């Protein structure tokens, strides 16, 4: 089933035409990867899916983006959208508070105050993010004391705590070492049983390792979209081939 359907979507930053006529359907409980050289618009597209682009002044979007058939730029409340479509950023951004309060931030935002309920959610999401064993004795300690990889997995857990349907990952491993990256990739593979994951990555091996579908972007256009193994084994477009074989980008 399609989770996100994007039709005839254009995005402008002021006069700059950043995304051109994007048509894309992303399936539920799959990992979809966006690849392409810097400035190709892949991150911009990702940020359109939970409307984080609203923060950018002069950003204008035309066309349709639908979540389960519902227009996300229509009457849908943007805060509800962001609860349903969680996001993990390139640079881990835990709040300067305890591990517990980081996880509880989202549930508290959405009205859960009961201590026992929060305790349960914190444990459950940390287990979901496979970081419970590392952090269970440090719940009251500041999240800023964790290692970079732990911080990023904490941020994934924090996003999961509000029970999103979709998880957006914006180059979430690009600042991490290979071991931490491996852990997050494993985590993604486990999480796709429950969540739809859409990731932007600079790392083509990463896309190849964990994604089911891959979309290749170039200069604001979506060039090719297909099953990941097909994109990498027999790309249809010459530009895709040149990119994945490392001839540019």
């Amino acid at each position, binding site marked *: 089933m399609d989770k996100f359907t994007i039709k005839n979507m254009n995005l402008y930053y002021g006069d700059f035409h950043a995304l051109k006529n994007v048509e894309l359907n992303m399936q539920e409980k799959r990992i979809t990867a966006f690849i392409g050289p810097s400035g190709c618009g892949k991150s911009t597209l990702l940020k359109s899916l*939970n409307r*984080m682009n609203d*923060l950018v002044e002069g950003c204008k979007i035309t066309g349709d983006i639908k979540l389960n058939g519902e227009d996300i730029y229509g009457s849908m409340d943007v*805060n*509800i*959208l*962001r*609860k*349903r479509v*969680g*996001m993990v*950023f390139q*640079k881990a*951004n*835990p*709040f*300067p*508070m305890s591990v517990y309060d980081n996880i509880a*931030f*989202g549930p508290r*935002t*959405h009205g859960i105050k009961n201590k026992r309920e929060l305790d349960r959610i914190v444990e459950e999401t940390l287990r979901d993010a496979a970081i419970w064993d590392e952090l269970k004795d440090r719940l009251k300690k*500041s999240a*800023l004391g964790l290692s970079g990889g732990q911080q990023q997995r904490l*941020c994934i857990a*924090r*996003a999961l705590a*509000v029970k999103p349907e979709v998880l957006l990952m914006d180059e979430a491993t690009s600042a991490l070492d290979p071991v931490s990256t491996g852990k997050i990739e494993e985590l993604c593979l486990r999480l796709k049983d429950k969540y739809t994951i859409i990731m932007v990555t600079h790392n083509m091996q990463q896309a190849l390792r964990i994604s089911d579908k891959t979309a290749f972007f170039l200069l604001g256009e979506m060039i090719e979209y297909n099953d990941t193994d097909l994109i990498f084994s027999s790309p249809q477009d010459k530009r895709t081939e040149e990119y994945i074989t490392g001839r540019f980008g």
Partner: protein
Amino acid sequence: MRLNRIKEMAMQGVFLLTAITSIAAVVLICIFLFYNGVPAITEIGFLNFVGGQKWAPTNVPASYGILNMIIGSIYVTAGAVVVGVPIGVLTAVFLARFCPAPLYKVLKPATELLAGIPSIVYGFFGLMVIVPFIREHFGGGSSLLAASFVLGIMILPTIIGVSESAIRAVPESYYEGALALGATRERSVFKAILPASKSGILAGVVLGTGRAIGETMAVILIAGNQVQIPSSLTDGVRTLTANIVLEMGYSTGLHRQALIATGVVLFVFILIITLSMQAIKSRSEKYG
């Protein structure tokens, strides 16, 4: 080559001299205050001075208890904090996060202008506007309430300025992180950004407190200056600073020294405030 070296050393000398000037000023003030004030405190007796409730320097025998003034200063300062901190911090939040650019161009200089107004003008404002207002609506007039209110306004620029830069120093990623969890703009600001800037905001509050406790001219005009521990907000109150200014002109001998000793007490208060300020700073450096 040699000339350059000499020039360099000369410039270093100049810098050293200017640096020493400010330190020398602090040291000299310290020495002056304690040299003139401490003998009076020993003569009166430390507990009689700081803990005494009777201030009657012209009586025979005279008594020099400044407890009323110490309490007065603390009350007035606390009142100023109660008035100034919520307004100041919320203004800083508005300026840093919600203010549209055209409005900011007006509001920001306005808050800075507030800092430039001479304190005697605040005093006049209090005397002509606040005091009559209080007299009409609550009774009394020149009072703890009037002083707290005017001082609360006077410390606004300090609190706003320091808090605003503290809020602006918080990484935008905290705000985005909160928004991405479905938090509203307001919740993201108050629950993610504000906690992250709390040590900076606290520093602003402490700085404002220092300003309030040392303020003199405005307070004299509107506080009533009765030597008493106020039992209600509309009672008059005399602060340490007011005590010194009101009586310095005609005091002699031990009376004069006791006033300088009052200055010593004030100085100790400021010292405590400055030290706690340093503690907050080093703490925030440690924990980010």
